[in-house]
């Protein structure tokens, strides 16, 4: 059950990059972390999940990846706000897909975008976050998910 739900978020990311760029992403083997800050890159989009399940979904990416992503979709402005928009858009796509596919038992928020320290959704201290490496071209972003 949990695996299926995690896959929904992973699939959303894969599809997003598939449509955005010429090169598909490669998913690394997922591992467990206790704190999203262990994998936080320059920009992070956070979606909170509530309803029957509680948790969060993070997409965190370095600025180099975001710059390349912006340029690959034909934009020339790689300013800070554009990079925030880009990470927000990825998170937003995930949020939309998840909302559509997970059904009404999941309440998916609109994304919160941050530069540097991410917006962290509270969780139990011993709960784990699934860190899923997203490798695109030579860059590495991470998808972080925790669901209780």
């Amino acid at each position, binding site marked *: 059950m*949990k*695996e299926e739900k*995690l*896959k929904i978020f*992973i699939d959303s990311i894969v599809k997003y990059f598939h449509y955005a760029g010429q090169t598909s992403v*490669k*998913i*690394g*083997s*997922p*591992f*467990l972390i206790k704190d999203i800050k262990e994998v936080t890159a320059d920009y992070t989009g956070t979606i*909170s*999940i*509530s*309803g*029957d399940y*509680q948790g969060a979904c993070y997409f965190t990416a370095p600025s180099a990846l975001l710059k390349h992503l912006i340029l690959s979709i034909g934009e020339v402005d790689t300013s800070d706000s554009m990079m925030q928009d880009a990470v927000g858009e990825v998170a937003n796509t995930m949020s939309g897909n998840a909302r559509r596919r997970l059904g*009404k038992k999941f*309440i998916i*928020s609109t994304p919160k975008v941050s530069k540097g320290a991410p*917006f962290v*959704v*509270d969780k139990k201290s*011993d709960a*784990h976050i*699934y*860190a*899923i*490496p997203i490798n695109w071209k030579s860059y590495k972003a991470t998808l972080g998910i925790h669901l209780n």
Partner: protein
Amino acid sequence: MLNFLGRYTAIITTTIVFVVLVVGVLGVNFNLSFQTEANAEVVNIAGRQRMLSQRVAKSLANVKAKALSDEPYSKPLDELQTAAQLFNRTLLAFKQGGPTLSTKSGQTYLEPVSGSQGEKAVYTALQIWQPMNGLIEQVINQLGESNEQASLESAIGSLTQAQEYADSNINRLLKVMNDLTNHTESLANDAADKSRLIQSAGILASLLCFAIIMYLILGQLRASDMRASMARRETKQIFETVDQGLFLVDKDLRMGSEHSKALESIFFTDKFENKSFTQFIGGLVSASDLDKVKRYLDLLFDPHKKQRLLTDLNPLKKLAIQVEEFGQPRTKFLNFSFSRVFKDNQIVSVLSSVSDITKEVTLANELELETRRNQQQLEMMLALMGADSDMLPEFLASSHGAYANVNELLKGRANSALEFREKADAMMPLIHKVKGDSAALGLEFISQLCHQFEDKVQIVMNKRDPSGDDFLSLTVTLEQLISTNQQISSIFDAIAGSGISGGSAGASEAETGDSRMKLMQLAETVSQRQGKKVNLSIAGFDEAWVPAKVKLDVVSLASQLLRNAISHGIETPAERVGAGKSELGQVTLALYSQGAQGFRLVCEDDGGGVDFDLLEEKAIAQGLLNPEAGGKITPNRLVNLMLTNALSSKSEADEDAGRGVGLSVAGELVSKLNGKLALSTKPSIGTRFSVRFTNFDKGSNAQEPMIEQKMKGVA
């Protein structure tokens, strides 16, 4: 209606009186205006009498003068006649009432003059006038009859007589007529005064009535205002105090102007007035749910649908919405209920109440979760109660380390299918050891999870082109294993804290009675799963001395060897019968002290023995051996492969064996404890593993392994 009339009786009565008064005043005024006009006419007629008396006298003089001068006198005679007749007629009308010529035009009717002064004046005037009138009539008759000289002379005589009478009485008559005029004027003035008085009284009464009406109306308004104000105040107090969010929805599905304060705290807004309810609720539910809500609202306004039925159909009984509190997302559960509001038997609106049932729902969910968790914990606790409390911390520590290592392996970067496969391969022994350890402790639920993990690893290994997302399933199982460990830790702490002890709690480190029981259970479980019949003999586990620190490893090693003996060594009952053996396979596990600082573990079975040909075939197939590369493939070499590489003689993996990991883990344990393993095997006779451990100091109770000799393989 009657209530309404009752409440306003005073106002209605006063208003009727007011209207009657106004109409009365108007009527009186109308009447008096006629009376005044009539009185003025009387005064004018009285005044005309004065003028007529003078004209009669003057006409008499004119007639006489004309007659004496022999001039035509008909005109003055007519004037005399007209004046005398009008005077006479009018005077008689004053006396007894009757018609006379109006001063304006036509005829008018005079009432007999009233009042003593008037009556006296008329009476006196008649006294004076009647003789004079007789003389005048005589003159008129005489002059009007013929023009004879005799008659004329006679008429002149009458004229003279009339003139003399007039000369001597005309002033008196004038005065009397003057008195009559004054009297009629006085009467007219009195009537006018009276009229003003009546009008003033009427107007005053009307004003008074009006004032009373105003007073009553204002009083009523003030009372109504006070009632309305009190009602508003009470409504406001109710709206501010009630816990539920209350508001009305009209037929157009618009929200009303009033709502309770709680509604604002539920939705964090106060903008509800005239808002479309469907639009409002649309922001909280999915599109399909919104359709249900719309249909439900239509039913609410349908008078043919029963309220009780509608209560059951309510789609908003438990609506989950997400809100943010202190920067953190939070789920809120709301309960909407709807009651129809009727007016004249028509549904005019729906009273909606919203309650925040988050606490109730959360408590119910927590209760359910807690019940489930308690059930799990109870099962876990029962399992732990039977586990060796001395070995459990060691198990928790070693499994925790194994999980951390698996997680590190997952975390490590892999760029190719080979690297992914290597990563998966490296996880297998780590988890397999946990599986063996948990089985040794009787923690079946952990060994099952470990087995699932191994299955999933095998799936990754079997993939032609494994990639990162193939590991997701492994990571999920790893989290379950870690979570199970956390639960065991907390339960174990609770048991330790409560003084409840496990099967061997309080036992000395040399006592391994619980291990004996676990091994018996393991043998039973594995043999049942494998469809084999096995009789396990355990010797020495109750007496042999084993250092506490290595006890788990020793029992784990025993369980790996036992599992291997049943899975690989003992044949199926049919095979055994076919080979002329008893259906019941014999496995012996023995643990005994050896010398001052050592002990020995032996596992022996009467199975089919190691099939070296099959092992060789598998080793070649798996690329572990290359026959073309030269070198003799000895049984010793094959056993070493069994103990160090994932080589198994089983064709299919199951929960107990087949991945070649069991003996590999056993080999690692022997190596870890610096043991010396000897294996002897004979086809269809059986196999014997014997492991010797030395150099453990009983006095210090610490593990002091003496590196005497590396494992040398087959004896």
